[in-house]
C-alpha cells in the first residue's frame, strides 16, 4: 500500500534535510525517494512542474514544494508533538525572518566558497563568514536559535553543517575558529535523533562537492 507521505529528495541537499528532520520530529512515517537530478522522475516533474526541484513533499497525493513551506506545513498538520514554530506571533515572525535570511543569503555565498576560484572565491569567503557571524550573533548564548527548544531556525540551518568540512577544505577556511559558538550549536543539534538520522555523512558530502568542483571546472 502506498505510504501517505512521500518525500522526493536528493541525499546531500541541505534543503531536503530540513523536511526529513521535520517529519522525524513529528514521528511521521514517510517513504524517502532519492532523485537522480540529471534524470528527474516523471513524478517529480508532475508534482513540481513550476520549479522541477527537490525536495517535494507528497501528502495523500498532493504536493507541497519549497523546504521552508514544507516544514511549516508539517508543523501545522502534525501539531500534536514537538512544535517547530513558536506559538507567539512575534517569536514566529522572528523565526521566519531568520530562515528567510538563510534562504536569501547562504546558498549563493556557500556556492562561491567551494565552487569558484580567485577573486570570486575570496569575495564569497568573506560574505560567507560574515553571514555565519550574523547568525552566530543572533544565536548568542542560547542553546538553540529559538531559546531552550530546538525549532524552525535550527532546522533551517543545520543541513549546511554537513557541508562545512567541504567549505573548509576547498575554501581554506576554519569555521570553528571564526564561529565557535555556531559549531557548538551544530554539535548540540547533531545529538538529536531526528537530525542524526536525517543528515548524511560529511565525508560523503565532501566527496560530492569535489565532484561538483570538477563539473564546474574549478578543480
Amino acid at each position, binding site marked *: 500500500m502506498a505510504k501517505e507521505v512521500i518525500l522526493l529528495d536528493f541525499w546531500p541537499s541541505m534543503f531536503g534535510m530540513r523536511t526529513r528532520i521535520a517529519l522525524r520530529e513529528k514521528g511521521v512515517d514517510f517513504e524517502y525517494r532519492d532523485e537522480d537530478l540529471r534524470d528527474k522522475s516523471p513524478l517529480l516533474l508532475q508534482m513540481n512542474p*513550476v520549479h522541477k526541484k527537490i525536495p517535494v513533499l507528497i*501528502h495523500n497525493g*498532493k504536493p*507541497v*514544494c*519549497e523546504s521552508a*513551506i*514544507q516544514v*511549516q*506545513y508539517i508543523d*501545522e*498538520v502534525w501539531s500534536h508533538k514537538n512544535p517547530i514554530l513558536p506559538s507567539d*506571533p*512575534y517569536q*514566529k*515572525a522572528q523565526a*521566519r*525572518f531568520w530562515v*528567510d*535570511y538563510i534562504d536569501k543569503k547562504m546558498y549563493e555565498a556557500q556556492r562561491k566558497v567551494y565552487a569558484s576560484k580567485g577573486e570570486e572565491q575570496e569575495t564569497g569567503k568573506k560574505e560567507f563568514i560574515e553571514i555565519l557571524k*550574523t547568525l552566530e550573533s543572533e544565536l548568542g548564548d542560547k542553546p538553540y536559535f529559538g531559546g531552550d527548544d530546538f525549532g524552525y531556525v535550527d532546522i533551517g540551518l543545520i543541513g549546511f553543517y554537513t557541508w562545512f568540512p567541504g567549505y573548509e577544505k576547498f575554501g581554506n577556511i576554519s569555521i570553528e575558529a571564526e564561529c565557535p559558538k555556531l559549531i557548538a550549536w551544530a554539535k548540540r543539534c547533531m545529538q538529536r535523533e531526528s537530525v542524526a538520522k536525517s543528515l548524511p555523512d560529511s565525508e560523503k558530502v565532501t566527496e560530492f562537492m569535489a565532484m561538483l568542483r570538477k563539473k564546474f571546472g574549478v578543480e
Partner: protein
Amino acid sequence: MATGDVKLIGSWASVFVMRARIALNLKSISYEFLQETYGTKSELLLKSNPVHKKMPVLIHADKPVCESNIIVQYIDEAWSSYGPSILPSQPYDRAIARFWAAYVDDKWFIALRSILTARGEEEKKAAIAEVEERTDHLEKAFIDCSNGKPFFNGDHIGYLDIALGSFLGWWKVVELDASHILLDETKTPSLFKWAERFCNDPAVKPLMPETAKLAEFARKLFPKPEA
C-alpha cells in the same frame, strides 16, 4: 488599539510597504505611517532593520517585524480576532498560498523588474516574454486557488491576493514603459478581472498610487541611459 502602539516605516511607492498597509486596513488597525525620504534611510529604519536596512518595518509595541510577507502573516496572527483571516484556514491551502507568494517575489517580480532595467530591444523582448510566461503560471494558480470565487483567497482578499495585487500600480507603469500589454484580457482573463476587483477593494483603493505619479517616480529610480 492605541495608535501609538503600531508604526510602519515605508514609502507610498513601495509594493512591499503596500502589502503591510493592506493587511493593517483589513484588520482595521490604526497606525502611524513613517514615510521615508527617497535617497536616505532614517535612523529608526537602520536601527529597526539592521540586517537588511530595508522597508517596510512594522513596529508593534516597540518590537520590529521585517520582510513584507512575514509582516502580513504577523498582522494576521497578532490580530487574529479582528476582521477576516488573511491566510487560508487549511494547512494545505496555506502552503499553496505561500508557494505562489514566494513565486511572485522570486520569479515573477524579478522578470517584471528586468523590463525596466533592460538595455536594448533584444533584452527588453526577452524580459517581456519571461513576464508573459510567468503571468500565465499565475493565471493557472488563480483558477486553482480561487475555485470559482472572486479572489485567490476565496470570498475576500487574502495573503496571495495581497502579495501579487500590490504590484498592480507598478504593473501598469512597466506596461507603459515597455509599450506592451502585460495583463492581457484575452490571454489571462481571470487575472485581468481579478485585478479590477482587487483595486476596488476598500482596503486597497486608498493605497494604490496614481499611475502618472508612480511613472514619474519610476523614471527617477530607473533612469534611461542617454540616447
